[in-house]
């Protein structure tokens, strides 16, 4: 079983906000924790403190039976002695070294044969065979990301820290690598902390997630729990206007797939996915109807019951319970009045198939 990580510290910046971390990552319970929050919320500061690149003013960091930081005892283990793997947002590859030399950098001091064997294994794991002789300037963005990842994992770190691992990539490459990264993290089995501000990345990569807002961790739990039951308003706003549901693709026909979500069956556009998925739905894409039975082009008509009605500026946010699933819809005040939407009202949620966005869930 992997070692647990307990971090409780405060990092203060002159003229800036204090960053408070209170994070316990139990070993074994799913390897990947996503540290999620908007930019400026302090995620990277927490990651740097975990890496030993930053020294918090107060607090403790304990990894397994090793204390990395205890400010009361004046104890601080620097990055080079923590045996962690760190992936930088811009990758920070050594420009004067080849891909092979970059990956071998952390294996310094090993016998040459052992070093070469482990370097080759790490390059092979990231499908970089044949690119070892290239300099970073001769690699594409996706290849650089893989080299950086191979470099981070080659020394067999005890903890992987990934800072916005996919943000420097273009759209198609990002989607391709997202799935691969999750598979790789599971295969390695090393506890990992991934910083991201992208909710799709959080869903695709994480087992657990900690949400940071304004320098504090507001909620920490399983990814689905955080998305479906945000602890407070700010976390809800932070994790997004989207409804996120765990589903499973059970069939495909004529360019559409059928996704089963909490006993409901939804039609979505087939994008080549299968198995377990996250279903993302923006509140403004949900149309509410009273009575139902009207003909429309939308594929999904879900019966539900209104649970809350909350005005948001010119709009009203209505949450529904469609069986076990919770849906969020944004409607105008006029519609709200016309349909007499109030708690307990029976309505149909109408959703077009292309409005359902599917993200693989491994």
């Amino acid at each position: 079983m992997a070692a647990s990580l307990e971090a409780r510290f405060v990092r203060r910046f002159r003229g800036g906000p204090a960053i408070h971390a209170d994070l316990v990552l139990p070993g074994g319970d799913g390897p990947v924790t996503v540290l999620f929050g908007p930019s400026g919320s302090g995620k990277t500061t927490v990651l740097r403190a975990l890496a030993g690149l930053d020294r918090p003013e107060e607090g403790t960091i304990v990894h397994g039976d090793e204390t990395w930081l205890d400010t009361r005892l004046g104890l601080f283990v620097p990055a080079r002695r923590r045996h962690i793997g760190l992936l930088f947002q811009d990758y920070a590859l050594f420009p004067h070294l080849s891909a092979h030399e970059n990956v071998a950098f952390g294996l310094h001091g090993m016998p040459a044969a052992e070093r070469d064997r482990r370097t080759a294994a790490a390059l092979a794991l990231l499908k970089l065979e044949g690119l070892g002789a290239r300099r970073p300037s001769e690699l594409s963005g996706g290849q650089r990301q893989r080299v950086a990842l191979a470099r981070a994992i080659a020394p067999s770190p005890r903890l992987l820290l990934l800072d916005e691992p996919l943000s420097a990539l273009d759209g198609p490459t990002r989607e391709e690598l997202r799935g691969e990264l999750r598979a790789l993290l599971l295969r390695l089995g090393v506890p990992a902390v991934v910083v991201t501000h992208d909710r799709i990345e959080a869903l695709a990569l994480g087992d657990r997630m900690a949400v940071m807002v304004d320098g504090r961790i507001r909620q920490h739990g399983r990814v689905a729990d955080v998305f479906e039951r945000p602890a407070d308003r700010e976390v809800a706003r932070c994790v997004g206007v989207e409804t996120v549901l765990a589903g499973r693709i059970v069939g495909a026909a004529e360019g559409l797939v059928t996704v089963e979500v909490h006993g409901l069956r939804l039609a979505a556009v087939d994008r080549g996915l299968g198995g377990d998925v996250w279903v993302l739905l923006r509140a403004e894409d949900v149309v509410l109807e009273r009575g139902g039975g009207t003909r429309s082009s939308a594929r999904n008509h879900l019966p539900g019951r209104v649970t809350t009605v909350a005005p948001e500026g010119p709009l009203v946010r209505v949450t529904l319970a469609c069986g076990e699933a919770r849906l969020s819809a944004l409607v105008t005040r006029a519609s709200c009045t016309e349909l007499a939407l109030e708690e307990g009202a029976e309505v149909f949620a109408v959703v077009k198939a292309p409005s359902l966005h599917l993200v693989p869930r491994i």
Partner: protein
Amino acid sequence: MPPRPGLPASLIIAARDARTPRQRRSRDDSRSRPARPALSVDVPALLLSLKLSAATAAILVALGLPLAAWLAFSPARWKPLVEAVVALPIVLPPTVLGFYVLLLLGPHGPVGRAVESLFGARLPFTFEGLLIASVLYSLPFAVQPFAASFAAVDRSLLEAAASLGASRLGTFRRVVLPLSRAGVITGIVLSFAHTLGEFGVVLMIGGNIPGETRTVSVAIYDHVQALDYDSAGATSLVLLAVSFAVLATTYALQRRTVSAWPLRSKPAS
């Protein structure tokens, strides 16, 4: 300087006295030497200058790299003071620097006394004394390019090296130095070329002893003083050519090794 009323006479005399022997010495040297044939290049002086420059550059690599690394990476609050001291030779007249070094190395100075009691030798007007003065005089020309290129290395690369277990010295050797090659070469060449052309400090510390402290710039000055313009011209031309060749070669080498355009670099094997 005309004597001014109100200034103590002793001070004026002292000031005159401080100047006179030096001028007299350099004139005496040039006059006592036998007349040279026209168009002579003072080869021993040129060789001595090259030797002095090479030794100065070598010592500055040994001293300058750690000093520049400290300047580039230390968070010390009093760092600006050290930076100012390092940069002083750029703004000070060589005579001022030479004067203080002379006091320091002289028989009554702390360094001079220590050396004399340890080795029984005196530093002023010797090659070793000249070398010490040259190192101080050219310090900023080595340390500033070194430190600037160290500081230009992306901090995240240093952090990446640390996260991969590299010590500070290891990071310096394996990441900082290779990425600062252009700056290090510039510092070495500049300190070499600057020493080659130094004059004031040589006169103050080295004097004009052929084969020991008579550098090429002093030789040229002597030729001019002796109205031997042909020899001065020939020697100057050699110095100009050597300096130009050293600088041009360095910049040409750097142009080839430091490629700002990845597309132009060699394709991967």
